[in-house]
């Protein structure tokens, strides 16, 4: 992985981030009619002209579009995401408070998914056609079909409502009560992990089967290496490449799923202010959060690519 390759990848991410910002900016101007009037109207009732004029001024809609675009990009570069239309609270402060909690949830979900999906996939490939393989493949099909919010809701119904062994949701800071914090994290993290674990299982299983058919596996066995060494050093290392690629492809689903899971479990991450803002038509807040999560999405994809290049040096040279 050369510095030039990394620099090129970084430049791509910056370009895409600019593209994302531009699309978000244009979205407000592509809607038919006056965006200020649109944001204020509810259920077909026309808003009063005074408040429309006020909102136009607040969003800067009364200035030429290029000036607006310049101001928008300039503010972004100075990390100024504007203020909420509802309570004038700075959008960036809200994000700074909430983002770590969302990241924690994503990280916990990803770790669980990897810890469950990859070993299960390896085992299923070695047990091809066996009882575990068939069972796990069936479970996977089911897991891929259940929407993430249904899994979340059913987890609450089962563990909190019926068995009463887990809290239904909420949040306690880790510094306040570490044990309760982790307890509250468990169910939402499992809900987030379910889809990813299923995809990782399928991909690991397929990649393992592919890798097992290679000549170097036969060579490794022929020269007398034990089965564990063949599987973990020779096969798994090569099977992990497509698995990492899939991890990158799943990031969008994962981030979207977080919005739903946080809502189900009252986890006070980015989704709380986002959903409140969408309902209240608080445009600057929505834009700030959508931009943040989209850039996060691009960065996570970059991270996956870096891991991929580290596992498979050919990637950085192609």
């Amino acid at each position: 992985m050369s510095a030039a390759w990394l620099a090129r990848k970084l430049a791509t991410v910056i370009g895409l981030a600019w593209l994302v910002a531009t699309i978000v900016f244009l979205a407000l101007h592509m809607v038919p009619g006056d965006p200020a009037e649109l944001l204020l109207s509810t259920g077909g009732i026309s808003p009063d002209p005074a408040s429309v004029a006020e909102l136009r001024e607040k969003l800067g809609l009364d200035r030429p579009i290029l000036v607006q675009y310049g101001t928008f990009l300039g503010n972004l570069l100075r990390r100024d995401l504007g203020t909420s239309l509802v309570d004038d609270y700075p959008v960036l402060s809200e994000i700074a408070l909430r983002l770590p909690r969302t990241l924690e949830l994503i990280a916990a979900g990803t770790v669980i998914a990897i810890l469950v999906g990859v070993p299960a996939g390896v085992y299923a490939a070695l047990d091809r056609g066996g009882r575990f393989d068939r069972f796990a493949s069936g479970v996977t099909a089911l897991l891929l079909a259940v929407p993430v919010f249904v899994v979340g809701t059913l987890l609450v119904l089962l563990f909190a409502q019926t068995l009463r062994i887990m809290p239904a949701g909420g949040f306690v800071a880790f510094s306040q009560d570490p044990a309760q914090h982790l307890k509250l994290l468990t169910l939402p993290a499992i809900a987030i992990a379910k889809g990813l674990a299923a995809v990782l299982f399928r991909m690991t299983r397929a990649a393992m089967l592919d890798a097992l058919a290679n000549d170097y596996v036969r060579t490794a066995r022929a020269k007398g290496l034990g089965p564990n060494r063949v599987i973990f050093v020779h096969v798994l290392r090569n099977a992990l490449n497509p698995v990492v690629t899939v991890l990158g492809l799943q990031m969008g689903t994962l981030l979207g799923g977080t919005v739903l899971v946080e809502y189900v479990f009252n986890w006070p991450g980015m989704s709380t202010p986002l959903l409140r803002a969408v309902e209240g038509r608080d445009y600057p807040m929505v834009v700030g959060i959508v931009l943040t999560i989209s850039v996060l999405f691009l960065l996570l994809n970059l991270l996956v690519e870096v891991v991929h290049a580290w596992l498979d040096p050919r990637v950085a040279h192609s």
Partner: protein
Amino acid sequence: MKRLWLPGAFVALIVLAALCAPLFPLADPVRQDVANRLAGPMAGSWLGRDEFGRDVFSRLIWGARTSLGVAFASAMVAGLVGVTLGLIGGWGKGAAAFLSVRSMDVVLCFPPILLALLVVTLLGPGAGTLILVLSVLYLPGFARVTHAEVLSVKGRDYVEAARALGARPSYLLLRTVLPNIAGPILVQLSLAVAAAVVLESGLSFLGLGVVPPAPSWGLMIRGARATMEQAPLLLVWPCAALTLTILAMNLLCDGLRDTLDPRTAGR
């Protein structure tokens, strides 16, 4: 072919139920009956009543109509526009052809649900907004698949033969190329419908999709969450309906892919 039968029959059954919802002797799915709120199964209401005393079974069937209606409509719009763009991109030359496919990829920079929420903020929730957003989200898939297929097909002998016989470009594209690449497009269509059902239910669950009191599975799950303690079964029915529908659709997609798109089969 064998793998297509069971999920195919199940999906057909749901589609039929959704289409024929007005023909069945079902209770009005939005009529409230406060005296019977959260009532268990009773005469005329096999699955009981919800938190407003509305018939749950009727809402499940009408909910299928909403979910599938939105999903099919958006997949069709995405398919029509996406395939057109893909045909232009694959057949044509120059910047316009390049842009017609590449510009779609911008959509892929966003996690889908966030793009949806951005549009809902601007246009307000509702079935129309949902169809618009979902069709935009699935456009790139269609454009890409069509583009790739046209590129692989356009140099084939039978296309050359048709051209030599004097066929015009529009005839070549629509009557020679399109039928030959219909398989992968059909697979893409089935994938888009299944994905749209998931996203529609998610947005409705958040209260930002279908507007109440219209019946939708996502909205039913949202409503039943509040009364989980008194009536847990109210939560189970829409969850089961949604999951089984998506499961059947996914299996149908896999089956279709194995049958129609031999290159990716067996993966």
